[in-house]
């Protein structure tokens, strides 16, 4: 017993704040932040694509070529996920603001639904766009 008490007092060697140690709603919350920041950082690229795609037929063709590159397609897929996740998590957030589904069980269920729905939307729109 005394040994256990001594052990308890010892401070943790390191703080594990990894994503996967959080409960599901916490995971959705931190991913909401990460996806938002990623979309912000990608804005100049997205505006560049929109600008060139509308400018002229030649630049439209060059945008198509640019988007054929595997790295660009990977980025598109990543940003699709970021948009889908930010969208779904945002809707969930608005509902929570309106006091819809704020009990623990519903909040956990809706968090899981957000993770699943954003992955499904990414695959669906990735398939529509890239193939």
């Amino acid at each position, binding site marked *: 017993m005394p040994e256990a008490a001594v052990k308890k007092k010892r401070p943790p060697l390191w703080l594990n704040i990894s994503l996967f140690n959080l409960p599901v709603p916490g995971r959705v919350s931190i991913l909401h*932040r990460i996806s*938002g*920041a990623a*979309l*912000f950082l990608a*804005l*100049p690229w997205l*505006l560049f694509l*929109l*600008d060139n*795609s*509308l*400018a*002229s*037929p030649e630049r*439209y*063709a060059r945008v198509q070529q640019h988007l054929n590159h595997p790295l660009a397609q990977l980025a598109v897929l990543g940003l699709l996920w970021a*948009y889908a996740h930010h*969208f779904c998590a*945002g*809707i969930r957030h*608005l509902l929570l*603001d309106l006091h819809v589904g704020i009990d623990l069980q519903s909040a956990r269920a809706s968090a899981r639904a957000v993770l699943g729905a954003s992955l499904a939307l990414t695959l669906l729109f990735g398939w529509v766009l890239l193939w």
Partner: protein
Amino acid sequence: MGAVVVTRAKRRVVGAHYGTAQWLRQRLTAVIMAVYTVLAIVALLILHPENHAEWRALFAPGWVRVVTLLFFLSLCYHAWVGMRDILMDYARPTSLRLALYTAVVVALGGYAAWAVQIMWRG
């Protein structure tokens, strides 16, 4: 001791409520973007532009440009509130935080102007 507790209980929360206004605008811009996103996806699936001419024709009507610009302005404001929240939590010291705030505001102001240019280049 008792006196302290009474004073605390009577303490009124004051402030200009800048936070509340931003919180509300963050949600308002979110709703604008969500509605635009759904309508844009439906329009793209129905009209299915396959080349530059068809893609450009989508943005030909004036109201489409206005609504699209409203989307971009909402996005820029929303991104400012979100990035500000993130920087407030992680960017230390204050000087670095203020520098990054400035960079974000300048970037988003530029993106908003760029969006106007893209929509009305003619």
